[in-house]
């Protein structure tokens, strides 16, 4: 029986003539490749075979826990804004749907996707620093090597001074997004930060957590709370821990429970005390982290060594500023209480 192969896979990638020394980004233009001879060229999509901007590899979305009912979504773009355009042979962004998270920007090794009043893809068929592969034997290998090299080049697509305004914009869009978009957003953000994370497949009523994630050898349940009902998140986490403990044989004491929220609950909300109660009585530390802090890690750090354990905050200390700053080794230019990102708004 003849099984046909898809026409669109592989074989149409581009190769670099010269590997750039560095990537230059200045707000007024596309990102540039700086070559050894000092010349600068616009970056362009190389039709990479892996399509890093569009999809995660099977390995990247492998569930951190065996038998976990995982939602096997490969897409990098949480809002469905980024699609492959067959005609132009490059990704395109639907600006209506784009929430400007920058995941695709971060993922593209060639830096062909960039922020500039929205997200853009640079596609130049006549770029003089690239040529199309012609099926030579080691083209594939060379392409992989070049992509790996490009990946290693440092690149900062956003200035640190822009963080607040971009986060405000993203938050504005996330608040109105479908819950499936939000969940995918958090999952993808964590995966890109190097933290394997799986969303739970809906329909399995006995495994109720929003997701699970893994850091080192430790696995933890994850609840995503973008609204005001943080108390429900701490309750759900206790339920999750029990499920992992009994059904997945993961001792409650070695789990890393985490609540990811958009903004921290206000100081007067019951959440903070309950988190402290749980720690006191059960010796279980439930960490809390905001999407904003994770985004800062995404944009700022090249390699991330985020330590979720350190993000335990409760009624006695409701701020994650100090720990985030020490891990990022910068002073985060975000005003106190701003969007409840680093400490409660009030």
């Amino acid at each position, binding site marked *: 029986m003849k099984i046909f192969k898809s026409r669109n896979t592989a074989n149409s990638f581009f190769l670099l003539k010269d590997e750039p020394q560095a990537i230059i980004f200045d707000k007024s233009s596309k990102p540039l490749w700086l070559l050894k001879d000092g010349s600068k060229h616009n970056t362009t999509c190389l039709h990479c075979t892996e399509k890093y901007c569009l999809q995660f590899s099977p390995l990247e979305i492998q569930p951190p826990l065996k038998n976990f009912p995982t939602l096997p979504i490969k897409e990098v773009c949480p809002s469905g804004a980024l699609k492959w355009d067959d005609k132009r042979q490059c990704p395109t962004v639907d600006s209506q749907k784009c929430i400007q998270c920058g995941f695709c920007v971060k993922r593209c090794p060639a830096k062909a996707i960039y922020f500039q009043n929205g997200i853009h893809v640079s596609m130049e068929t006549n770029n003089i620093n690239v040529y199309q592969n012609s099926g030579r034997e080691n083209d594939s290998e060379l392409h992989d090597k070049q992509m790996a090299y490009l990946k290693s080049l440092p690149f900062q697509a956003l200035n640190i001074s822009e963080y607040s305004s971009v986060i405000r914009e993203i938050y504005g869009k996330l608040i109105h997004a479908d819950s499936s978009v939000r969940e995918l957003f958090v999952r993808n953000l964590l995966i890109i930060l190097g933290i394997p994370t799986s969303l739970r497949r809906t329909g399995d009523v006995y*495994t109720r957590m929003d997701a699970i994630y893994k850091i080192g050898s430790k696995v933890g349940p994850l609840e995503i709370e973008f609204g005001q009902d943080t108390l429900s998140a701490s309750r759900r986490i206790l339920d999750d821990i029990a499920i992992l403990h009994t059904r997945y044989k993961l001792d409650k004491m070695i789990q890393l429970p985490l609540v990811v929220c958009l903004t921290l609950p206000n100081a007067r909300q019951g959440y903070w005390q309950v988190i402290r109660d749980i720690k006191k009585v059960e010796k279980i530390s439930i960490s809390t982290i905001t999407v904003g802090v994770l985004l800062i890690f995404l944009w700022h750090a090249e390699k991330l060594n985020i330590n979720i354990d350190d993000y335990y905050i409760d009624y006695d200390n409701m701020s994650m500023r100090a720990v985030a700053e020490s891990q990022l080794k910068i002073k985060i230019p975000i005003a106190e209480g701003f969007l409840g990102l680093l400490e409660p708004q009030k």
Partner: protein
Amino acid sequence: MLRFRNPGTQFETQLLAFRQVYSALGEQAIFGLEDIAKALATNGLMTAYGYAGNDALQLSKTEQESKNSTLMNAKMYAEVFRMLGWVTPATANSSYPLAFTYIGAHIALSDDDCSKLYEQCVLGINNPTEFSGKMHYEEKTRFFTSALKSLVSLDGVMYKHELCLGPMSVDDQDKAKYQTMLKRIRNLRGNYERLKVAFEKLANNLGMKTTPVDNCTRLPIALMKHCNWIQKVTNSTLYNKSMVCLQITEHGKEIVKQTSQMKDLRLDEFQKYDKKKQCALIRLGIYSMLERAGYDISEVSTVIAQDKKLCADVLKGQEILFSPYQTIRRFLIEEALGIHFGTAQVSEANNNDTNTKTQTQHSNQIHIFSPANYSSTQKGASDREETELRNEILKLHKNGYSSKAIVKHLMEKYEDATQKEFYPLIATIFRILGFSCSYSRPGDNGARWDAIIDHSESSIPIEIKSPTEERHISIKAIRQALENKIILLSRRTHITQPSTSSLAVGYFLPNERAEVDSLIDAIHKTYGYNIGVFGFSTLLDLAVTCVTQDKTLKFAALSAVRGVINENI
């Protein structure tokens, strides 16, 4: 009207599930629901009774109920796979067992997300087919092209109920009927009341309630969204009120353009041709689906050219739109393609040796109604609320009401009670049972119990759900009861022990009984706490016994209860 059943799963999961079933059973399998269930459970894609992997089926075997739910799950997948033409009935006259198809094999063996082939399969859905004998509807249509075409004709936007009134209820190749349908929808527009009446009339004619009719739009909308043919938009011009409507996308318009230039072949026409032509049309249908989905079919170009020549009078130069597996049975298709599926032995679905160990619910639920749990010690002075409720019960009792009838009367009386009424009432009932119980004001910060039984050593927090909040106690209330327990142990406002129960009280016992039971069990195993659950009628029953027999309940009967306390019927 066409009836689409909700698939209940995400598309990504369908693909993954299909690939697992394919690799687990092998391409030649002839299989049933149980085989699908087994294949999915072994790979962790389906959990029965919450246990992943092989445990799932073992446990399911022991409990008919969850076994059924596992099979229901498998059926849901099977129906989606069949609708898309990835599997097909293996035999000539029944729906099961199933065999894989040539299109299914491409889905299973490709390494990309197959979204384009998926799109072709959605376009392939049409009616009638050789399988549609048992359907409740007779519309002759290729629904999705018809729906997209209607969208274009109706200014690019439609409300979901217009789908039911329009493309789901029309023969799309009958030009006159189709135009009448469009005209009818145009005439409805501008007045929401008109639409509502028309929709209700439609439901009525179908002998259905409006909700299930509305539900029939879920799958087609999800499929169209998934194929990126439509998007949801808020529109307030169609019916002069803000509604979430469906808007055709650029890609959707492109599909309309493409398909309108194709030869759309349906069952009745297909059946008119001789076998040789039928076989050629089958090949053309399948290869063209694959080609449009981006597969490189150059290897069969000679065959295609010959077939096209043979079918020139049918095609008239157009490309064919015809999905054989979604229209006819597999035998002729396989003959035409020279392939064979389903050559394996029929699987003996029930062959795996079952381990019939019975799973019991490990709860230490005490038989709370047993006489030993009551003591005849009279209780101390009563407050006003308590006296009132007592008197009410006694009066009914005197009037010859049985205990059951009293409970029924009070159940009905408080059917619509709000928190404000229900919380004090529950506290009153516990006082009648002989405990010192007080309630917290509703809304007094979420992070605390709604009532508490104060005890010198073992105080019991109570989470209450009034019938207006939720009629059946849910998982949520159990979680709150756990939180109450932890807060009480931490903040020590009342003395208690870790082993003392934390209660959840609601109007009716949980609907999702198995889920609640398993959560209570998991909480006990993980944290060591006892969560007890009471329905309103159970508490009333206890209260009636106490009042009419002048007794109280022993504290021990309550303080270590775990699990859902069944009604005393």
